């Protein structure tokens, strides 16, 4: 702690209009006049945009001309511009920690509709800031070195892209994926809109680069257990689930799979959306990366009952199968983390009107992706459950999206995915295809052109949200079919359309454990459950936790091009952080007033960062400033009031409270 200066306090107060953002709700001139009247205030001004160069220059000029030694800026959240004004003050020769901000935008004008109330609230916050800033004293930021490695969580296309970019930049990358293979949802798709390139053809080269890149450590079938530390110095614990196959020995020949005592698949195949069965020992899909089989402990006889002829072990010439394998734990140190944990699809059973789970020929989009795919359960044949070819297919958009009962948001990709599916179904089967949409959203490069192509191909488009898929036949032509009941809103007439197959374009939704992941990484979620970016426009891949970045659908529904672009942005942000080599730490650390400390040791076991020790000679507690994270636990616990915290001293807090309550 640096002792406060004893010059008389001369405060400058700067009230920002923020265009109309603040000025439309807060009487800024009234607030300025009020500030001017407060003791210690030497200057008070308003300006349209305080963050602009002229605004900053105004503050700097006052510091010099009026001899200001404290500055209060009443504007937006300190998250946005605290560093701007700190820098401006520092440039004028003032210690930047003599600055205090009063947030009269997010906390006042944006949330208080009544002008008189808003003005009163702004006065109270400024009064609090003026009282507090008088107690400030100069501080300095500390620099801490950054660990150069980067962790990418999630091996879908976003995680793959981010990991490759960073590895190509020469950084050490850990890529951790929960499933036995990377690839994510993109690996399940057949073709991709709007160019119709084969998903596997463009994805698998990237997957094999991941596998072979010298800078990448790939851990599949693994999950993050614990994250500690801070930007630049994260300590992460990773749990690697046993796959009962030695990854370094297996070459993916799949002899073991053929040899398994089960001659046929008996477990629902996750990759094929349950449309086929797999064995307890299996290769997730042909291009799985790593190309290593895995044994499912929930269906393997050896693991479940301890008894099996173990034909797989016999068949493996490389002795890769290892039933003794146990869970492994690894601890890594990284400077930055990119979360690319993806999404899951909406459970169509939640809209019983559409009959999913009740009528066998109602499918989800992802299921049909597998049917269309040559490596899928039907070898690329689009067939109904009984093997017949559909003559008519209805594709229903917005299933679970744009629906306040489920997800109020638009899932962004379903229009284009449905157009693509309509094209593929028509091309492969010649069926009559109907698309049922509320609004057609084809807004990215080449998308409208693709819509135009599908229109020309003769796909039928009906603007209307389907109310019901029913087996109730009225006309004989409807017998044995699924009847789609919809208002053709462009005609204004209710139509009944019998089809053989219904495809539901289900919503994208946050992963089931998104909330748990959010807590683990100490980031925020938006109302819809997706991870919250720091700023929707200007911080789209950052989070409110420094050093943790977002890529792909975990941040919100988006398609492959957008996910890849975002992954690039996240990689660039991570690179900025680790290449800078150091981070500056806010000096909000705790300190001990040695004269007051009784050496009682209360604080020592309470410190979650082991930052406190006892000086045996002096008989007092000592806080290691490099380890202290400023959590305040010791300050609150100290029975003799010897522990204090920079930026949050008792005097500062009490004066702030008195200021905010002065008018009450």
């Amino acid at each position, binding site marked *: 702690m640096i002792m406060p200066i004893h010059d008389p306090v001369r405060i400058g107060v700067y009230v920002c209009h923020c265009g109309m953002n603040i000025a439309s709700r807060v009487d800024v001139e009234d607030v300025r006049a009020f500030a001017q009247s407060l003791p210690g205030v030497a200057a008070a001004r308003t300006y349209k945009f305080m963050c602009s160069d002229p605004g900053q220059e105004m503050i700097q000029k006052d510091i010099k001309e009026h001899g200001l030694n404290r500055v209060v800026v009443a504007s937006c959240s300190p998250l946005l511009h605290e560093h701007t004004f700190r820098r401006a003050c520092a440039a004028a020769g003032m210690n930047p920690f003599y600055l205090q901000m009063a947030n009269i935008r997010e906390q006042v004008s944006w949330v208080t509709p009544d002008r008189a109330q808003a003005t009163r609230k702004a006065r109270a916050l400024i009064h609090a800031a003026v009282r507090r800033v008088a107690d400030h004293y100069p501080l300095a930021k500390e620099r801490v070195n950054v660990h150069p490695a980067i962790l990418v969580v999630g091996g879908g296309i976003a995680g793959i892209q981010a990991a490759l970019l960073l590895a190509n930049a020469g950084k050490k990358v850990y890529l951790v994926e929960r499933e036995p293979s990377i690839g994510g949802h993109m690996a399940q798709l057949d073709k991709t809109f709007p160019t119709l390139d084969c998903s596997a053809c463009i994805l698998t080269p990237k997957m094999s680069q991941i596998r072979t890149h010298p800078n990448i450590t790939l851990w599949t079938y693994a999950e993050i257990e614990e994250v500690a530390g801070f930007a630049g110095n994260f300590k992460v614990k990773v749990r690697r689930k046993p796959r009962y196959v030695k990854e370094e020995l297996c070459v993916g020949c799949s002899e073991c799979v053929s040899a398994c005592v089960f001659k046929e698949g008996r477990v629902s195949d996750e990759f094929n959306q349950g449309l086929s069965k797999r064995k307890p020992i299996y290769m997730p899909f042909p291009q799985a990366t790593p190309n290593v089989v895995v044994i499912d402990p929930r269906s393997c006889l050896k693991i479940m009952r301890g008894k099996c002829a173990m034909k797989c072990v016999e068949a493996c010439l490389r002795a890769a199968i290892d039933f003794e394998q146990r869970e492994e734990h690894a601890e890594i140190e990284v400077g930055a983390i990119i979360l690319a944990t993806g999404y899951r699809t909406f459970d169509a059973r939640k809209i019983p*009107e559409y009959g999913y789970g009740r009528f066998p020929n109602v499918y989800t989009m992802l299921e049909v992706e597998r049917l269309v795919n040559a490596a899928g359960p039907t070898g690329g044949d689009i067939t109904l459950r009984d093997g017949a070819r559909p003559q008519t297919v209805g594709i229903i958009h917005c299933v679970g999206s744009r629906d306040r009962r489920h997800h109020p948001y638009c899932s962004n990709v379903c229009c284009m995915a449905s157009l693509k599916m309509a094209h593929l179904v028509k091309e492969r089967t010649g069926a009559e295809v109907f698309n049922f949409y509320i*609004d057609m959203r084809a807004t990215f490069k080449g998308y409208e052109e693709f819509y135009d192509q599908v229109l020309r191909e003769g796909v039928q488009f009906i603007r209307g*949200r389907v109310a019901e898929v029913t087996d109730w036949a009225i006309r004989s032509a409807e017998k044995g079919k699924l009847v789609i009941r919809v*208002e053709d*809103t462009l005609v*204004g*007439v*209710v139509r009944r359309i019998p089809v053989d197959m219904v495809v539901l374009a289900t919503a994208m939704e946050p992963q089931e454990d998104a909330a748990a992941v959010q807590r683990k990484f100490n980031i925020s979620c938006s109302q819809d459950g997706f991870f919250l970016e720091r700023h929707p426009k200007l911080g789209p891949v950052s989070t409110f936790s420094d050093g943790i970045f977002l890529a792909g659908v975990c941040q919100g529904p988006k398609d492959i091009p957008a996910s890849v672009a975002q992954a690039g942005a996240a990689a660039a942000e991570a690179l900025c952080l680790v290449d800078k080599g150091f981070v500056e730490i806010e000096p909000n650390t705790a300190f001990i007033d040695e004269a007051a400390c009784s050496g009682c040791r209360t604080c020592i076991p309470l410190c979650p960062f082991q930052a406190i020790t006892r000086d045996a000679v002096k008989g007092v507690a000592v806080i290691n400033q490099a380890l202290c994270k400023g959590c305040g636990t010791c300050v609150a616990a100290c029975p003799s009031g010897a522990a204090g915290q920079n930026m949050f001293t008792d005097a500062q807090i009490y004066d702030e409270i008195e200021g905010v309550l002065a008018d009450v």
Partner: protein
Amino acid sequence: MSHPRITWRVKYQEDLDLAFGREIAARPGGEDLYRCIQCGTCSSTCPLSIYMERTPRQIIAMARAGFKDEVLASHTIWLCTSCYACTVDCPKQIKITDIMYALKQKALGEKVYPARFPIPVLAKEFFQAVRRTGRSNESRIVVRMFLQTRPWKLLGNIRLGLKLLRRGRLALRREKMDGGQAQLRMLLQTTRRLENQTPARSPPLAESH
């Protein structure tokens, strides 16, 4: 050779009543009127929409655009049987059944419902019967409705009436309350008085779902 008649159709903004939509939205249950995205789920789930000259979706669009006369004169609002299928299925959770009630009340209040149309007459008869006796008497209400709208239809219903009478399912005497009429009268009178002072048209306290 006769030529097909052609007419021109255009709606001038000054002939629309924008306050109409706001008024309906201010009625209980109408609060989400302006959230409609015109998806048509209501129309296709509605078992009666096949008889409507305008689908429920169109009624919503017209109400908020201010087509007051067309909406209030429409059969659509009277064909609604309050089965609530639209309300349950609406992805924007608009209480469409309640909006239909608000429109019916408005049409009755302004006496603009279709002439000799039995449904509003039945509603009024029901309303008056309950005001008088506290309970409804099915047969009396139905007879009075037919007399006012399509008296000849009564004949066709005599056979059914007799069948029901024989089986003890048609009460000819007026169904009365077993006490409490004075209290009920006071209740309804006060409600009407209070409503006339300030109509009960305020937004809900909380989201219903």
